[in-house]
């Protein structure tokens, strides 16, 4: 398979310098990790660090050969639980009515998955196997997914050498500062997990029935073309979705656009603004996710993404309205 390239600083990287071979090995490992995350039965506790906050979450994951089921339970802060059964996600929280059923069909398992073809990722990121480490008492291979430019964040992934599960992940700023971290403090891979364990303790799942798949007819507006356009994007980003949705609270239509380079994701929300004083203008961030708001043409334009502020701002200022 060849040797792994060891890289020391970002400044020493250049796309030409990274052998396709090095990228391949790292990418293959990531693909294997993606499969393992979906296909194994495991249980553990992760700590999720975002900014100054630290939360711990209990995770259960089960795969029966066809359907993935997961249960994530908050161990700190207000009681909250998310139960996923294939395409059905249920959120239980201690406030509000008690159950909110999300009818979106998620394509992703818990963990990091790399569905983008290698060529796409390689044009924006350098994938490198950086070395070895220990997490949760297990030996791990460290993979770096570093941006070729400073317009997006980097990732560092610790992959269990035995199970190939993702033990730890970090999103890093340009200066190498971790913005968000998810790390298993305990992890057990199991032969089997009893189905009852995937049921929520916070609510009776029998009373939250399986819903029919979210059919397009129920939310046709999602697929309408938005009249807003982003005219600048960092290289490698593509538009994934465009639509008009109704905000449940305000009964206001908001236009949304979603872009991704395969790893980072940026969402744009545009809503009509009535009173300028109420506009959200400026930044707010949560962990690695930054939100930037500004007013354009009597509209509130909000960009949300896990990319650095200058990138978010540049995307925001490039947003224009198209008159149909």
């Amino acid at each position, binding site marked *: 398979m060849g040797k792994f390239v060891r890289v020391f600083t970002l400044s020493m990287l250049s796309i030409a310098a990274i052998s396709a071979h090095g990228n391949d090995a790292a990418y293959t490992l990531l693909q294997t990790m993606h499969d393992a995350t979906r296909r194994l039965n495991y249980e553990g506790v992760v700590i999720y660090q975002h900014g100054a906050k630290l939360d711990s979450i209990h995770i259960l994951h089960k795969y029966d050969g066809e359907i993935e089921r997961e249960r994530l339970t908050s161990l700190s802060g207000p009681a909250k639980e998310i139960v996923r059964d294939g395409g059905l996600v249920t959120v239980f929280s201690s406030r509000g009515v008690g159950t909110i059923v999300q009818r979106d069909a998620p394509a992703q398992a818990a963990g990091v998955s790399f569905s983008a073809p290698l060529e796409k990722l390689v044009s924006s990121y350098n994938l490198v196997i950086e070395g070895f480490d220990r997490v949760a008492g297990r030996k791990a291979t460290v993979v770096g997914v570093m941006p070729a430019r400073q317009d997006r964040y980097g990732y560092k992934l610790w992959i269990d050498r035995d199970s190939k599960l993702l033990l730890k992940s970090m999103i890093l700023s340009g200066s190498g500062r971790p913005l968000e971290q998810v790390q298993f403090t305990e992890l057990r891979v199991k032969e089997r997990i009893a189905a009852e364990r995937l049921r929520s303790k916070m609510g009776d799942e029998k009373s939250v029935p399986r819903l029919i798949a979210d059919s397009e007819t129920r939310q046709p507006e999602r697929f309408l073309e938005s009249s807003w356009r982003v005219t600048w994007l960092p290289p490698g980003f593509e538009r994934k979705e465009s639509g008009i949705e109704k905000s449940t609270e305000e009964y206001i239509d908001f236009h949304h656009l979603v872009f991704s380079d395969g790893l*980072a994701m940026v969402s744009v929300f545009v809503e009509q603004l009535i009173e300028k004083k109420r506009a959200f203008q400026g930044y707010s961030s949560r962990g690695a996710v930054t939100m930037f708001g500004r007013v354009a043409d009597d509209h509130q334009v909000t960009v949300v993404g896990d990319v650095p502020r200058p990138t978010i701002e540049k995307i925001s200022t490039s947003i224009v309205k198209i008159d149909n």
Partner: protein
Amino acid sequence: MNKEHISAFMDGEATTEEVEEVIDSLGEDPTLRGKWSRYHLIGEVLRSDRFVTGEKLETLGKRKMLRIEAPTRKAILSRPAIGLAMAASIVVVALTVVLFLSGAPDKPEYLISEFEPGDALDSRYIDPEEQEADQTVVQIGKSESVREHQLNGYFTNYNRQRARLGVPGVNPYVRMVGFDSE
């Protein structure tokens, strides 16, 4: 006509015959109108988990205006509104708790007004601008501002989109569980 027809009518599930019957009955019977009104209120409460309320207000039915009793108590009386004389049976929602962000972003101001039909109104009026935030007078469920709620909305939508589109990165469910807002 029974009350179940009202319920079905509300949901757009009544038969054609039931529809006319229901509308007629509701028009004639104030008790049924009350039910119509309350049935809708139930729905509003269920849909709104962001009900900002004032907990120390007088309970319903006691029909008292908030009064300023001591200099330290910060409450606001509604200014006598227009047409008060003709508004003896005004129906519009009497209580709104409104949150405003003051100049300093960390300092929300809470205004409460309770408007009582038919009451002799205290004509003292406190200019909202002069009020200081006092969280002991009003208990907001969680002391979040309108701004926080708005940002939570964007954040949650973002994570849900990420899950739906299968974009890799930090597990959006971990993010959703970790951030105790929804």
